[in-house]
Every structure is written in C-alpha cells, then in structure tokens.
C-alpha cells in the first residue's frame, strides 16, 4: 500500500477552522498529554520516549531520548525549541507553528517537565510573523488556562515559556549558533566539544535543543504510549514524519507519512502524494534530504524514505525535504543556486567555508554562463576537497559547523552523475537548457 494507514500524529489538526486557538485544540485531546505527563515521573516519560525511539526531526536524526539522557546534572537546565526553519525546500515546522501552536507548546512543556527545566525558549525564525503571532496568542491562552506558569494544572511544577524571534540568519538554526543568538549575540556556531548544549548550553548551563516537529510528537506519544509510536515504521525510523515535497512534482506540499514504509516512487508518483512529475516529464535526479544531502538517481526510486535506507544509498534523510527535478533541469544551475545559498549564509568564522563558498559560486557561475574551462572541473573538486577533505559522505569536517561541508555534495554529485552536462556547457559556450542564461542581475553577496 503506497500510503499506509498510519495515524497522522503531528499534522491532523492543520487546515481545520481556527486550528491555532485553544478552543479548537481542546476539542481534540488538547493538553491531555501534558496532564498525563505531570502525573508521571520524569523517568517514566523518558522511558516512553526511549521506547518510541523518536529521532530528532531537525536534520541530524539523533535519538531524542538519548540526547535527554546526556544532560549534565546541574541547575538550572534550559529547554530551547528550534523553530528557525530555513533549510531550503524545508517548510514543515513553519506549517506546524502556524497551524498548531498549542501542540508545540504542549510538547515543549512535556519535554521541559521530563528534563527538569523551568524555563523554555521557543526560538522562531524572524521571517515568520504570522507564526510568531499565533504562537504568542496561544501562549497567552495556555497561561490563562493554567498549562503554563506557576504550579501548572495544580501540580508542584512551575514553568515559564518565552517566544523568541530570530532576525534573519540561516546559521542560527545550528543549535550552538541558536544559543549565541538567544544570548543576544551574532549567530556564530560554538566549537563542539566542549560546547555540546547538553553539557554547556545557554548561559553556560545544560540545555536541550529540540526541533519543533520532534516535540510536537510528544502530546500524542504521552496519550498513546511509546509502544504505539514504535509500532509504526521500522528499524530506527519509527513513527511518522513530515515530508516536505518540493520541486517538479504535480502536487508539492507537506505529507505526514510512515516514512519507513513509503518509497521515493510512492512519494513522487502516487496520485494522493506527488502525483507524478509536472507535464509528465522524465525524472532526472532527486535531492533526498535537504540541499546539503548528496543527490540520488531515479534508479533508487524503490528505496524507502527511512533514515537507514537513504543512508544505504550514500545520502541522508536529513530534515525530510525531498526535491525531485525533471529532465529540463540544468544541474549546473541547480548546484550553483545551492552553493550560492550556503555562501550567502556562511557566518564567516572558518576560511574554507567563507572563501571556498565564494570560489565554488564563481566557478559554477562562469560555467553556467558558458565561460568555463575544462580545468574548472578539477578546480571545483579541489575547492570541495579544501572545504571537506576527501569529499566523502558523510563529509569530513575541518570547520566549526557543518554548513561549510554542506556545499560539496551538490557539486560532487553533479560532476559524478552529469559530467557530460558540465562539459557541454564548456564546449558549446552556453547552457543547453532554457532559459540558457543566468538572471541578468545578481545581488552580490
């Protein structure tokens, strides 16, 4: 069966009338998970989360339970929710915050209670004012309802929640940069070790950083139990996951799927999912896990979307953003746009990222413009090798964070899979795909 009959865990309320209000939330199990949680011990909640084996939905796919278990025992501890979503073609957290802010608040509170945090920061990308407004309105309601604040629901547990807006910097999605930003500084990633947030996080205190979707699963998980979650999916890839499908499909959008049981073919071609490639064109290549992941070819269409399956074909499930591209796509231009993004967003601390990104962007730009040389192909690989030695997967890292090493995969995959296309640009002095030029004016970085 292409679409399994798994329950929709995190997205079922989205699209309902006024789904962001307390009234609507309470009509569908709202805050029952939290009520149940505060009747349990933190250890019992932790056990459910371990049984569920929920992998972080922010990109790295780290087990939430294991992360909580690594928290250094000290007071205070903080919880920070990562709602900075800016990874190109990833648009699931945005929908979750706008459509179901109470679920996020409830999930965050369950997590906070389980790790013993009495202060929660919801860091939301600044470019999402509607999400921020609905989240703040929901928080005001949740306080008045008694779910947040002093002695919640009459228990001994008190907790404060703050909605914190970012201000436009992709790098602040990286968890240590996010903490710097939350401290009122430039979003410079910190060096790990020693600055693993669970050990040394916000204001130097132990801090858990979890993604919006990760904690949005917790209310359901509390009500139905870790076993029910683990009964869905396979291997390490349990539960459902929001897949953000973009690119050349007929029906782009977010789909909550039992990811370990759905293949790329289902996702792209099933009439209730992607619905096929636009204009019934041929599928050329897929970016399977956000633009930092290596591209995969249509020969892998029958691979499932699970963490392990995608890792098995040399890439990653990452943030769950999947971009199929059709045969009219210029892969040089696609690689250029991805590299241009990372270069624009580099924080500038590490030379290979700051300088290498500019080199890659310029070389790809000149190949696309028909002014490349054959030697440019080696030069591209050479620069990639400087950013991430060996240009292997998973990438070797000499930089402070993995933004830098996120650039080579698109270039290396393009050169490996579509070398002839690069050569055609160089030989013919023009891009073979319409429109055969770059935009007239490019904003300079």
């Amino acid at each position, binding site marked *: 069966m292409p*679409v*399994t009959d798994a329950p*929709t865990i995190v*997205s079922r309320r989205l*699209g309902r009338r006024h*789904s962001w209000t307390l009234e609507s939330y309470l009509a569908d199990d709202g805050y029952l998970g939290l009520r149940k949680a505060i009747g349990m011990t933190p250890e019992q909640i932790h056990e459910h989360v371990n049984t569920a084996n929920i992998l972080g939905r922010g990109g790295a796919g780290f087990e939430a339970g294991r992360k909580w278990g690594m928290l250094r025992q000290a007071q205070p501890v903080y919880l920070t929710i990562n709602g900075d*979503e800016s*990874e*190109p*073609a*990833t*648009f699931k957290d*945005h*929908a979750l915050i*706008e*459509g179901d802010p109470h679920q996020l608040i409830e999930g965050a509170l369950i997590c906070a209670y389980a790790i013993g945090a009495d202060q929660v920061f919801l860091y939301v990308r*600044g*470019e*999402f*004012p*509607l999400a921020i*407004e609905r989240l703040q*309105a929901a*928080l*005001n309601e949740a306080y008045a309802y008694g779910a*947040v604040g002093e002695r919640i629901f009459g228990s001994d547990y008190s907790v*404060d929640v*703050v909605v*914190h807006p970012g*201000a436009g*910097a*992709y790098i602040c999605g990286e968890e240590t940069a996010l903490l710097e930003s*939350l*401290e*009122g500084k430039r*979003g410079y990633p910190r060096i790990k070790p020693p600055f693993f947030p669970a050990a040394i996080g916000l204001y130097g205190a132990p801090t858990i950083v979890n993604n919006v979707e990760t904690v949005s699963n917790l209310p359901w998980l509390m009500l139905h139990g870790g076993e029910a979650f683990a009964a869905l999916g396979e291997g390490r890839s349990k539960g459902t996951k929001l897949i*953000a499908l*973009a*690119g*050349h499909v007929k029906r*782009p*959008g*977010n*789909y909550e*799927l039992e990811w370990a049981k759905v293949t790329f073919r289902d996702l792209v071609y*099933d*009439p*209730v*999912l992607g619905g096929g490639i636009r204009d019934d064109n041929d599928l050329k290549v897929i970016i399977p896990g956000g633009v930092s992941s290596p591209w995969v070819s249509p020969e892998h269409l029958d691979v499932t979307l699970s963490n392990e399956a995608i890792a098995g074909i040399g890439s990653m499930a990452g943030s769950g953003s999947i*971009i199929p591209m059709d045969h009219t796509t210029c892969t040089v231009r*696609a690689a250029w*746009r*991805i590299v241009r*993004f990372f270069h624009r*967003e580099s924080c500038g601390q590490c030379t290979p990222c700051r300088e290498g990104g500019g080199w890659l962007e310029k070389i790809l730009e000149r190949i696309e413009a028909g002014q490349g040389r054959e030697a440019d192909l080696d030069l591209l690989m050479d620069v990639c090798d400087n950013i991430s030695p060996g240009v292997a997967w998973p990438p070797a890292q000499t930089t402070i964070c993995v933004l830098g090493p996120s650039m080579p995969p698109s270039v290396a995959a393009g050169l490996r899979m579509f070398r002839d296309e690069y050569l055609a640009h160089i030989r013919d002095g023009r891009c073979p795909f319409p429109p055969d030029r770059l*935009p*007239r*004016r*490019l*904003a300079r970085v």
Partner: protein
Amino acid sequence: MPRLNPENLQRARDLIALYPESRSALIPILHVLQEQDGYLTEDGMSHVAEMLDLSAAEVRGTASFYDMFHFEPVGKYLVAVCTNIACMLQGAYRLLEHAEERLSLAPGHTTSDGLFTLEDAECLALCGNAPCVTVNWRFFGDVDPEGFDALIEDLRAGRLDDEVPPHGTLSRVRRNVGLPAQLAGPGGDGKRPAETGPQPDLSTRRTTSAVSSMNAGHLRGHP
C-alpha cells in the same frame, strides 16, 4: 523620533524581564525599534545599548549580522522574492525579473516614492507554494507575473493594510500573561493589569498561511 518612545520603552523593559540575562532581549528590542522607525537609527541603537549596558558598537555589530535589520530607510513595503532552489525550479528568476521591470528597481533598492523595496530572498519556507513572495514577511504563494502585478496594485491601494502592516512590525500580539511585573516578587506588586488591546484577527484572507502546504492526500490515515 530616534529613541524608543515611552510605550516602546515599557515594552523593552517587559522584554528584558523575561530573560535570565538582559542581553538576550537585544534582538527582540531591536525588532521593537525597527517597528517604531521602519529601520534602526543610530540614536535608537545607542538608546538600546544604554538600556542593556552594552557599547553602541556591540549593538550595531550584532544587529548587522542579521538580514532582517536595516540601517537606512526602506520602503513601506519590503517585497522579497524567493529565488532559492524550489522556487527557482518553478520560475522564480523570471518572476524576479518581472518584479524588477514592474517596479523599475534592482534588488536591494527602493522606489522613489518610498513605497517599495525589492529583495532577492533565500528560502522563505513556503516552498510548497513556489514561487513565493513576501511583503513585510507576510506570505503570498504561487505568484505568477499577473499575480505579482495585482499584488502591487492592492498594496498601493491600501487593500491589504489589515494583513500587511508597515515594514518593521513583527508581532501585533503582545504577551499579556506571566509578565514579571504581574507576579509577586521584586519589582512586581502582582496587580498590574494585563494589557490586552484589541487582538488582531489571525486568520489569513489575502495572505497565504504555511498550512496551505498540507495536502489533502496526507489525511488518508485515521486520527
């Protein structure tokens, strides 16, 4: 009006009180400042520096790291066209070129009447509705050239004023609960009334909510 006005000064104090360390309030306060003046003035940033016991250089050096902050006046409407991969695959550069012609502007510039500033933006997380545009970060999805022209006309005529406030306005919903001044303890008498002004309608009528990216197909399962 370069310094924070009395109302915004109170908002800034409320923000500071939310955090264990005052500097954490810097970015939220800068948003308040940008909402007040449309951009960050030098005097305004100095005022914020005084409040947080930082140097003006620290404030400016932090603010300039973040793309949303502007240091010169921008148009009443900041029109950002996403050109990142998902939108590019759906014709975003054609849309951007159309926008440039329509507004007679290169990205990064402002029309002489001060109404529009154009930006070439990175992914806005509305990729299910590519190509997309934001105006003062309010979203419009599936925008074609005709749709773009209609959008500009609507903005000019003020038809979108309730959903698209002037540049700099981030959240029209204020925190009205759990403010330290309302709680017992230092600085609070426990009696300060919650400031609940008229709440904006948070439905989307003309703008696009990210929820539109949820496709009906996903709802095959049972709850």
